[in-house]
C-alpha cells in the first residue's frame, strides 16, 4: 500500500530528525546559552551510544564470544541504558571541561575535535572494549513485543518524541530560571557578568555537562533505533557538524529553532540520499555520498553569512588610537 510506504518513510524520517533534535537541544545549551564551541559532539554521541549498548546487552558467551568481544554486558533494560548513557556522557564532559574550558574559544573547538576523534579511534582500536571496527549488533529495542515488527517504528517514534518533549520542557524551564539567566549573561559578555572567574568556570562546566548528558541520551536513542553501532558512524560529519548545521539553520539561543533546524537539515540530508540513489548515474555512486560534505559545508557558510543572528555577531570595534 502506498500510504503504508509513505507512513513508514515519514516515521523513520521523524525518528532520526527527533533524535538529532535532541542533539541540537544539547548543543544549544552549550553554544546557544553559554557560547561554548563544542566541535566534539560526535564524542558524546559515541559515548552515549556505546554505554547504552554495553549496558543493555549481555556479555557474549559460547560460540558468540569468538566473534564478538566486549568488556562488559549488564543486560539491563532500555531505560537503564539511557540513564547510563547520560551519566557516562556527563562524566566525560566533566573530564573534558577540566582540560579545555580555560582555552580560548577557537582552541577549545580544535581540542574537542581532537577528543572526539580520539574517542572514536579508541573504540576502533580497543577490540576488548566493544568489538572494535565491527562494533556491536543486536541492540535491544524497547517494547518490541508490543506490536508486529512492521509497526514497531511507530512505537519507537513515540518513545523518541517523549524524550524530546521532556527535554524541551526541562530546558525551557531551565532557561527562565536564575541559572539560565547567568548562562546567557556569560555568553553575552564574560567580563561584565561576574568578577569571579571561578564562578564563570563553574557555570560553563555545568552547561557543558548538561548539554553532554542530553547528547548522551540522543546517542542511546540512536543506538537502539539502529540496532547496531560501529566506530565509523561517529565521524565529524555525521556526529558533529550536521548538528552544527542544524542549530545554525534554526537560529541559536532558541530551543524551538534547534528542533526545527534539525528537521530541516535532516530533510536536506534525506533528500541528498534520494538524490544519490535515484538521480546520480551508477558510475558515480561511490562518490556521490560525499556531496553531503559540500552540503553541510555550504549550509554552514551560507547561513552564517546571511543570518548570523543569535551568534556573537556584532563586535563593536573601538579604535585603540
Amino acid at each position, binding site marked *: 500500500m502506498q500510504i503504508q510506504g509513505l507512513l513508514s518513510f515519514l516515521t523513520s524520517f521523524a525518528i532520526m530528525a527527533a533524535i538529532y533534535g535532541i542533539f541540537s537541544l544539547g548543543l544549544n545549551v552549550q553554544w546557544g546559552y553559554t557560547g561554548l564551541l563544542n566541535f566534539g559532539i560526535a564524542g558524546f554521541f559515541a559515548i552515549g551510544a556505546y554505554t547504552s549498548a554495553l549496558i543493555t546487552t549481555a556479555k557474549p558467551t559460547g560460540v558468540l564470544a569468538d566473534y564478538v568481544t566486549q568488556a562488559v554486558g549488564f543486560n539491563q533494560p532500555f531505560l537503564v541504558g539511557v540513564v547510563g548513557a547520560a551519566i557516562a556522557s556527563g562524566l566525560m564532559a566533566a573530564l573534558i571541561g577540566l582540560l579545555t574550558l580555560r582555552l580560548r574559544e577557537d582552541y577549545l573547538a580544535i581540542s574537542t575535535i581532537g577528543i572526539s576523534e580520539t574517542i572514536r579511534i579508541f573504540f576502533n582500536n580497543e577490540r576488548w572494549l566493544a568489538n572494535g571496527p565491527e562494533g556491536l549488533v543486536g541492540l535491544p529495542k524497547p517494547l518490541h513485543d508490543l506490536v508486529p515488527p512492521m509497526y514497531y517504528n511507530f512505537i519507537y517514534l513515540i518513545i523518541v518524541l517523549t524524550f524530546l518533549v521532556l527535554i524541551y520542557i526541562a530546558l525551557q524551564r531551565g532557561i527562565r530560571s536564575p541559572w539560565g539567566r547567568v548562562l546567557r549573561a556569560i555568553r553575552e559578555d564574560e567580563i561584565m557578568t561576574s568578577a569571579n572567574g571561578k564562578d564563570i568556570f563553574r557555570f560553563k562546566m555545568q552547561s557543558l555537562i548538561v548539554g553532554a548528558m542530553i547528547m548522551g541520551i540522543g546517542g542511546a536513542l540512536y543506538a537502539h533505533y539502529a540496532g547496531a553501532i560501529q566506530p565509523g558512524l561517529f565521524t565529524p560529519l555525521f556526529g558533529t557538524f550536521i548538528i552544527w548545521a542544524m542549530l545554525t539553520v534554526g537560529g541559536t539561543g532558541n530551543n524551538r529553532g534547534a528542533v526545527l533546524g534539525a528537521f530541516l537539515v535532516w530533510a536536506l540530508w534525506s533528500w541528498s540520499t534520494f538524490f544519490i540513489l535515484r538521480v546520480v548515474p551508477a558510475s558515480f555512486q561511490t562518490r556521490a555520498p560525499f556531496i553531503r560534505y559540500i552540503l553541510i559545508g555550504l549550509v554552514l557558510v551560507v547561513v552564517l553569512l546571511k543570518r548570523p543572528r543569535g551568534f556573537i555577531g556584532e563586535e*563593536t570595534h573601538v*579604535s585603540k*588610537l
Partner: protein
Amino acid sequence: MSILRVENVVSGYGSMEVLHGLSVEVDEGQAVAVIGPNGAGKTTLLRTIFGVVNPWKGKVYFRDEDITGLPPERIVKMGLSYVPQEHNIFPTLTVQENLEMGAFVREDDIRPRVEEIYALFPDLTDRRTSPAGDLSGGMRQMLAIGRALMLNPQLLLLDEPSTGLAPFLVDAIFDRIEELNAQGMTIFLVEQNAHRALQSSDQVYVLEGGEKKAEGSSQEMLADEEIGRLYLGR
C-alpha cells in the same frame, strides 16, 4: 587661507554622542591648539577629522575638499598626518622600520627623508635597529611624530603630545613642533597641558563636554584670568 574646516560635527561611539555640533577652523601656517579637560572630546575630534571615526552629522573640509568620512588610508595621501596619543608606534618593528612605514604610500626612495627625520630627532639615530617597543616614553613619542612626518604633511594632527613625558621632554617635543610650524607646517594639536599648548600656538579653542566654550588668540588666552583659573590652575 583655510586649510582645515570642521563644520557642526556630531560624533561619538556606539550610542554615546561625544561631540555635539562642533566647528573649528585652521588657517594655513597656523599652529592651533584645542585645550580642555579629560573627556571633553579632544581625541574624538582628531579621530573624526582623520577618518578613524565617522561623524554622524557635519562636515570636514581640507582645503575646500570634502573629506568627511573618508578612510584614513586616503586622507594620509592628501597631505594630512595624525599622531595618536596611545599605541602610536609599531612595537615589534624597529625604529627604522617604523619610519619606513610612515612613508608606505611612497614608491620612491625614502632614505633621504628617513635621514632628515633622524636629523630632527637625533636621539633616535642610535636606536635605529631597536624594536620600537623597547624605547622609553620620550623616544617613543619622537618616533611617533617622526613616523607621521615621513610624508612631509601640510597639516599635522597631534593628540596630546605631552602625554606621560617629563617636563624637559615636553619642552623638547614642543620645541620641535614650533620648529616645524616655523618652517611652514600647519599644526593642529589637542592638549591637556594647556599652558604649554598656549605658549606654542597662535589660536586656541577651549573644548568642554563636546562643545566649544571659548576661542581666540593664544596670547590673549594666556593673559585671561578666567581661563587661567579654569584651565591653567592659577
